[in-house]
């Protein structure tokens, strides 16, 4: 039986070092173990809800509506109809700002024939939301004792953090509708809050 030389063996070892094979397990096996041990605490790819884009779209709408409702409740803004009725004439809608019909029936009961239709509705709602927040920030000047520039400054800091987080999330999942809605809603709220912080007088937000 002949022998290899040291150089020949070194050559084989060098080739072995460079050799890569597929992993010994698939990810599902590893993930199952990690889930059992509680190392995976959330699973975006798991479950029926996250795998269906229409549920994501619905979640985005809920988020949007919920965010508006919570924002109004916490800041104490009157409802749309009350606001319209009580707004002084100088707060009339500027002609350049699109008018959103506050009396329009809620679309909560609406049904959609396709994902495209739901997505288009969602996009319109986001645009309306952004315009509404900007409009309110620019025109709603009715104040209350609890409001202060400091409160808006704190809010702006918090919104900056949310904005940075959602921006990072978008780099990972640029097409995720829920993250996109978070991002857009935060961006609109941040712009509006910045305007409030910049104002010299105590104002109410949206």
């Amino acid at each position, binding site marked *: 039986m002949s022998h290899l030389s040291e150089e*020949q063996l070194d050559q084989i070892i060098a*080739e072995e070092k460079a050799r890569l*094979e597929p*992993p010994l397990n698939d990810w599902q096996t590893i993930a199952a173990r*990690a889930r059992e041990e509680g190392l995976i605490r959330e699973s975006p*790819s*798991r479950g029926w809800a996250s795998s269906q884009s229409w549920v994501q779209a619905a979640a985005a709408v809920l988020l949007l509506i919920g965010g508006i409702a919570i924002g109004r409740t916490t800041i104490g803004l009157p409802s749309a109809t009350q606001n319209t009725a009580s707004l002084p004439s100088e707060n009339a809608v500027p002609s350049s700002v699109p008018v959103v019909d506050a009396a329009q029936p809620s679309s909560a009961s609406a049904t959609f024939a396709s994902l495209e239709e739901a997505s288009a509705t969602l996009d319109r709602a986001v645009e309306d939301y952004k315009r509404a927040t900007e409009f309110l920030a620019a025109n709603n000047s009715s104040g209350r004792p609890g409001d202060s520039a400091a409160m808006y400054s704190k809010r702006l800091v918090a919104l900056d953090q949310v904005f940075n987080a959602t921006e990072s999330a978008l780099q*990972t999942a640029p097409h995720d509708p829920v993250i996109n809605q978070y991002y857009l809603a935060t961006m609109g709220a941040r712009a509006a809050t910045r305007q409030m912080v910049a104002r010299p007088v105590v104002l109410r937000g949206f």
Partner: protein
Amino acid sequence: MSEMPIDQLDLKRAIAGDERAMQRLWSQHAPHIDAVVRRLCGDPELAADVSQEVWMQIFRALPSYRGDSQFGTWAHRIAVNRTLNALRKIRRLAKLEVDIEDDSAMVEMDNDRTFLAESIEQAMTKLSPGARAVFVLHDIEGYTHGEIGEELGITPGGSKSQLFKARAKLKKLLANLMDDSTTVAGKGKAHVAPV
């Protein structure tokens, strides 16, 4: 081993239990990590089981990763430790210190006369577990004899001795590989290049 710097955001998310971030870490590093597990174990089924343990340990230890070394280097060290521990548990590395004094790399000499390996991976299965560990850690993974001694609980001299014997046996087992390489180089011998 050069590697892309680990995404800090992925690391934070993986520590927080985000599955996709963990999967990205696994996808990026599993080929290298699993390779060392496979070589140390020698047995594919055992290696697959040990690999699961290795990855659980890597994920558990993520919060302790400080970025002092590259992530792959850090994870690789965990893989080696965990694999050697697993081998000790099933007694494949038991009495290694005694084996070092014996001619453990030369066992099964009679069988070697009829066994000719077609790859170094196949040939390594003919080494004793201790000799294989020393060979893999030194010649393939780049550990020093001092580091190997610490990992295996042997002296650097013992590591050198074991490596010498392992290489001698591999040269014998792989002899036909290089003999054949000139005639079958075009037939897809995976690890052979013309000399």
